[in-house]
């Protein structure tokens, strides 16, 4: 069957865009990666027929997005000492703000208020998104690879050429940052 890129764009373009936007959270990047995906698909000979087109295209798109995240992680300039992969030792600066010298919480985590109902759910997700946008690009990309793509740690480390320990430290820092941001903007509301 002859591949038809224009048909891919018409039939699957919006879906591919949503898939990319959900993971990259940047409309321009999402548009670019959809374009790249369709171009790559045109060059690819493994297309197996119309019914499988969306799955096949999504597979290519997923690889493109992970490539992009990998680039973001590798190329983002160091944002302060604490963000440098090489200096990400367990007792790096930056985490001190969260704990006192004896290892106790400096500010105890605020009490838990899960979003309730559709409206709250929506508000919560908006805040979560803006908190993710505030993470340093490197941490956000690593966090996405782990928690959105659910890539295995070993695969992430191999792709990024970092050690497991570095990955754990960076993920820890990403989660600490996200949690703090949510605490201020969501949990702190009530």
């Amino acid at each position, binding site marked *: 069957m002859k591949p038809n890129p224009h048909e891919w764009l018409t039939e699957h*373009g919006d879906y591919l865009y*949503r898939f990319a936007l959900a993971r990259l959270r940047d409309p321009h990047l999402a548009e670019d990666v959809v*374009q790249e995906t369709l171009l790559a698909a045109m060059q690819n000979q493994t297309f197996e027929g119309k019914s499988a087109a969306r799955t096949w295209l999504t597979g290519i798109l997923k690889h493109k997005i992970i490539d992009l995240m990998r680039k973001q992680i590798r190329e983002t300039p160091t944002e302060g000492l604490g963000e440098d992969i090489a200096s990400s030792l367990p007792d790096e600066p930056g985490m001190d703000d969260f*704990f006192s010298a004896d290892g106790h919480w400096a500010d105890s985590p605020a009490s838990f208020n899960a979003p309730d109902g559709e409206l709250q759910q929506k508000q919560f997700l908006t805040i979560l*998104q803006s908190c993710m946008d505030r993470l340093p690009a490197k941490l956000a990309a690593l966090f996405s690879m782990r928690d959105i793509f659910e890539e295995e740690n070993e695969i992430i480390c191999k792709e990024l050429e970092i050690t497991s320990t570095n990955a754990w430290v960076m993920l820890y820092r990403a989660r600490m940052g996200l*949690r703090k941001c949510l605490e201020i903007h969501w949990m702190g509301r009530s």
Partner: protein
Amino acid sequence: MLISCKQASRLISQSLDRKLTLSERLKLRAHLFVCDMCRRFQAHLTMIRISVKRFTHQIEHDESVRLSEEAKQRIARVIESNHP
């Protein structure tokens, strides 16, 4: 010997990325048994993980989110110029 909240919070995060060793699990369990702040922290991380997934799923299935017409036309032109 109980581990500190700082150590416990690290183990809680790492438990999302790897299987903790038996010794780590025991230390963490003992800490969580007496520390409601770290239990709260653990609940928050779980909530974040679930919410991020929900959020991704929601955008992915929101049919009102579409490629703009400009983007579609631009991509169509690029396809055209690359079509054999």
